[in-house]
């Protein structure tokens, strides 16, 4: 049984008027999935906020632990990649095959840069004594009075987000290959784009709530 054929049959029967929200079921499904995933991040962020509120030790100054300009650069890279993703979606919708391809490739490059920065940041912090369970006794970070909750939340939040960036990149690469082989309609690019925007948006929250506030 071919799923494509079956989907066509079923869509032919949707006759209740315009599709709700003007979206096909594929796009609706993507949207709902994104909401679910967003709530997963909210759960983690709320957990972090709860523990930070309840912490007995003072919370360290982020600007002393991290290089905020560097994090801002990471954020800038990711937001730029969101913009190029937007261009890719527009181009795909308009049928500009080549432009969509180029823009997708740039987006992927942006995502890779972000992951590279993150790897650098992690190794830097680990070098300074950050461990999943807390600051290593006697390390620079321990001297700064970093409580365990801080490093735990750091690794779990950014790690979880990083894994989302990674899966977003895989989706983008698959989309790029399929788009180049003309195997996916523009909706495929759109859906990959939705996910990518979501991953970027989550970062904005993490940046604000963990690095700035």
């Amino acid at each position, binding site marked *: *049984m071919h799923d494509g054929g079956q989907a066509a*049959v079923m869509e032919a029967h949707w006759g*209740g008027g315009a599709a*709700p929200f003007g979206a096909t079921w594929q796009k609706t*499904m993507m949207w709902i999935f994104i909401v679910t995933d967003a709530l997963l991040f909210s759960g983690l962020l709320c*957990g972090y906020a709860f523990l930070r509120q309840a912490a007995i030790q003072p919370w360290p100054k982020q600007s002393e632990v991290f290089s905020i300009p560097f994090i801002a650069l990471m954020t800038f890279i990711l937001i730029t990649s969101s913009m190029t993703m937007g261009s890719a979606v527009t181009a795909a919708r308009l049928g500009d095959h080549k432009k969509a391809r180029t823009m997708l490739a740039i987006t992927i490059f942006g995502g890779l840069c972000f992951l590279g920065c993150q790897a650098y940041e992690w190794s830097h912090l680990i070098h300074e004594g950050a461990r*999943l369970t807390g600051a290593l006794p006697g390390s620079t970070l321990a001297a700064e009075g970093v409580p365990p909750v801080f490093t*735990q939340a750091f690794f*779990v939040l950014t790690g979880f987000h990083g894994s989302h960036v990674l899966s977003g990149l895989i989706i983008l690469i698959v989309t790029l290959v399929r788009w180049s082989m003309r195997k996916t309609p523009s909706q495929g690019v759109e859906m990959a784009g939705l996910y990518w925007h979501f991953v970027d948006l989550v970062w904005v929250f993490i940046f604000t709530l963990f690095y700035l506030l």
Partner: protein
Amino acid sequence: MATHAAHAEHAHAPQAFIWKYVFSKDHKVIGIQYYVTAMLMALVAGLLAMLIRVQLAWPEKDYTWLGKIFPMGYDVGGGFGVMRPEFYAMLFTMHGTIMVFFVLSTAPVSGFGNLLIPLQVGARDMAFPFLNGLSYWTFLPGCLVILASFFVESGAAAGGWTSYPPLSALKGAVPGSGTGQTMWIIGMVFFIASFTMGGLNFVTTILNLRTKGLSMFRLPLTMWAMFLVAILGLLAFPALVAACIMLVFDRHYGTSFFIPAQIALNNVPLLTQAGTPLHQGGSPLLWQHLFWFLGHPEVYILMLPALGFTSDILSTFSRRPIFGYKSMVLAMCGIGFLSFIVWGHHMFVSGMSPYLGMAFAVGTILIAVPSAVKVFNWLATLYRSRIRFTTPMLWAMGVISLFISGGLSGVWLAQAGPDIHLHDTMFVAAHFHLIMAGAALFGVFGATAYWFPKMFGRLMSEPLGKVHFWFTFITYYGTFFPMHYIGIAGHMRRIYDPYQYEFLKPLQPINELITMSALILGASQIIFFVNFFWSAFKGKKAGENPWEANGLEWTTQSPPPHGNWPGEIPEVHRWPYEYSNPDAPRDHVMQHEPAGAAAGH
């Protein structure tokens, strides 16, 4: 042409047994797979409940013979066959977990949802059949892991179905906190993944695949329930996933999200070699918040389908349009919304600010309003109608009865004051078994009898069904009603031997009565299983529409063929509750009959 495509689709129905019945993508097969798996899990969880009950009535008896079956559970070596306390904790933990997630979030939602959604919205299948098949094959490993956890060396998880830390966060806390708890987490992750895949399909199918003319306000209330349940699940389960992620880090990678510094195991503080606390800065309360943010919507995930089934069954057998259709929909939406802002009522004794407690109490009491709307609408539907007392109808009325009795005790527990006395007593067990477990269970039995023709093309035996109903109804109340009383008297829940306390000793006769009733309750379920299998093969053949009902599922063969309708999908002209319209030629007008068939509407 659509018809051609439809016929072509038929020709493509898979032929090999394994693709047709095992790794099927057909929503009806998947629905039945889910249903049967869940009912087998119910059998296991029910047997665990029997062990719990026997223990509570006669804790001092010699259970050497049971010890032969569960060597880790009874102190056989010590000469006595007396239950070990930690085994009791494993029993109620696994009983609760299996019943809540693997039975009553599964049979009504994934079972009947899959079976009914395409049939009632007029689609050939779910939106994404492959994802649907995958969801079942993710669920099954979850079941197996949960079942297997009884057979690992240190036994199953023992932290309650709520898995509160530190019992769940410290591997050495109690025997079940080791491998058993790990398997609990793995099983739950499988379950949540499968529920999410199913939920995505539910929402998109109901939104996007409705047939021509089927507006949202012409959907059967069962479909509204499924729609809301899927949304509830998709919004609530992520909180538990987030909590489980942190829990796994706590358990296996040494973090302390849920573990505070001042923690001791067997009176030995947990310290590093340097003498500093091993864990620092965590809070077990964080788990409680995240868990109950899921947990309260979860009880409505159990309940709402039953409320939907009840509305549909009630209308069919009282031959009356459901009273206040739109208010029913709004009530369900209201219940769904409120369920997200009341989770704190499970934490009144956790030392929360009284102002916060008051807010949670008010929110909880507010849920009584939409709930009462539903009950009054049901009663108005029944009022002065000519009821056909079929088995599904009996179950539906049972749901109403349990919904009322359980709802009344809910009003007590919703308020922080009384709850401080009643929290963690058998009163709570009585309350949630009536309203959540009972109503959902009765809903499943009713739906089984009602939609059996669409599963197997046959009707279930009415006499057997009625005997099963009356036995279950009476013993269900017999089991859970007296628990209110012993709860108020101070009998705590989750205790393996209440009579270690002098003041609980006088309650033993009542506990014996409850256990007797529970044993009969358990035994009467044999009637159901016999009826189910006998009817599936030998039952009376059902026509297309044995109950003279109106929904789209009754416009096709029983059981429906692959693709659901042999020809074109019917078009919808009205809501599904057109009963006893004086202007119509018959006492019911089906959803697909053209406008001429019924004047008005």
